């Protein structure tokens, strides 16, 4: 289809859909006037019923925990697909060593960069852990903290170079983190059923409100999500970085002396 035909088709579709969209927007409640009853009820009930201060975590890990389980496996499937597609072409055997980009000089890093990364890296990891652990108390949780932790590992690459990064990050540890996190979340759903409770029912002691240990089963689920997100996102970085390196071609051995 030619580009012009596509634009015409898009414009036609837009014209058809525009009255419907306008009607829907006009029918929405005025911005900022009211919120949905469901959210209102959760705000009113959940601090008392679950002893947690963070309502978003209460929804993600308890009230709508089943949906998060689905999301967790969507994450797992997307990352598995990415890894399979990238590794499928490159081969499993090459993931163990740091491959070198042929023909590109290794530029030494300035000491300022190394020092900044060595200071910022642990601090970022600490901040990520803080965000993960305080999921039920203050803004944060496994998803947000996991992404911060995964980003922190990139500072190793920035400071220590690619080979140092590959030494610190082991690919199958990441596989284990990611799969283990998803498994932990699924087990959190199944374990209460052993005691005769419902799927993902919060059977652990709920702890005290506004305390680090509050929310019961939510803490374990949160940990599972944090593991899965940390492992998954680091795995994504790793696979994409590996993609920029070319596999050593066996027929031209003189190439790799860069």
């Amino acid at each position, binding site marked *: 289809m030619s*580009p012009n035909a*596509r*634009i015409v*088709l*898009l414009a036609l579709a*837009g014209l058809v859909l525009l009255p419907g*969209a306008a009607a829907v*927007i*006009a029918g*929405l*409640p*005025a*911005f*900022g*006037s*009211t*919120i*949905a009853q*469901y*959210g*209102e009820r*959760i*705000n*009113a009930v959940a*601090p*008392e019923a679950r002893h947690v*201060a*963070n*309502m*978003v975590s*209460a*929804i*993600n890990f308890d009230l*709508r925990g089943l*949906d*998060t389980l689905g*999301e967790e496996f*969507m*994450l797992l499937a*997307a*990352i598995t*697909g*990415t890894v399979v*597609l*990238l590794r499928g*072409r490159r081969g499993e055997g090459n993931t163990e060593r740091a491959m070198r980009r042929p023909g590109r000089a290794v530029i030494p890093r300035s000491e300022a960069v190394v020092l900044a990364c060595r200071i910022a890296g642990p601090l970022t990891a600490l901040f990520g852990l803080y965000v993960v652990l305080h999921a039920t*108390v*203050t*803004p944060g*949780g496994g*998803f*947000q903290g996991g*992404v911060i932790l995964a980003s922190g590992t990139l500072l190793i690459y920035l400071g220590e170079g690619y080979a140092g990064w590959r030494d610190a990050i082991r690919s199958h540890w990441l596989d284990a983190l990611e799969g283990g996190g998803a498994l932990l979340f699924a087990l959190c759903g199944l374990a209460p059923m052993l005691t005769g409770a419902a799927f993902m029912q919060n059977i652990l002691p709920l702890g005290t409100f*506004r305390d680090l240990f509050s929310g019961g089963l939510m803490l374990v689920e949160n940990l599972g999500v944090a593991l899965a*997100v940390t492992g*998954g*996102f680091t795995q*994504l970085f790793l696979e*994409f970085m590996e*993609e920029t390196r070319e596999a050593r071609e066996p027929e031209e051995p003189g190439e790799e002396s860069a």
Partner: protein
Amino acid sequence: MSVLPYAVAAWLFGIGLYGIATSRNFIHLVGCLGVCQSATYVLLLGLGYRWGSIAPIFYDHPPGTPAVDPVMQALVLTDIVVGATLTALLLVLTIQAYKRGGSLDPEKLRPMRAVGQSGRDRGSNRVGDGERKAS
């Protein structure tokens, strides 16, 4: 004024869709999809907002203080995480398409054939190649 957030969401979705329809580069296309997706963030957060409310975290404020809708915020969180991994997956597919077809242009995408069936004639520019079904 009260429909402004919804209008912003509709506009973001519209320009994202326009970008997808007119895209000549897969990476640009994935970026446009991200713009479309950010429209959903604006829409969801706009739907959940209420003037004079706090964030739904009852740490500094006692429970019972009017707070915005936490369900929408949880939905946006889900949306962002899934969006990030989906972007990664699409970029991988882009890499695959580039390696197989040698081009990032969606117009030049050819149907894939079984390897070894007809040699390597992917680069040939036959008219009507896109119409043919891979059988």
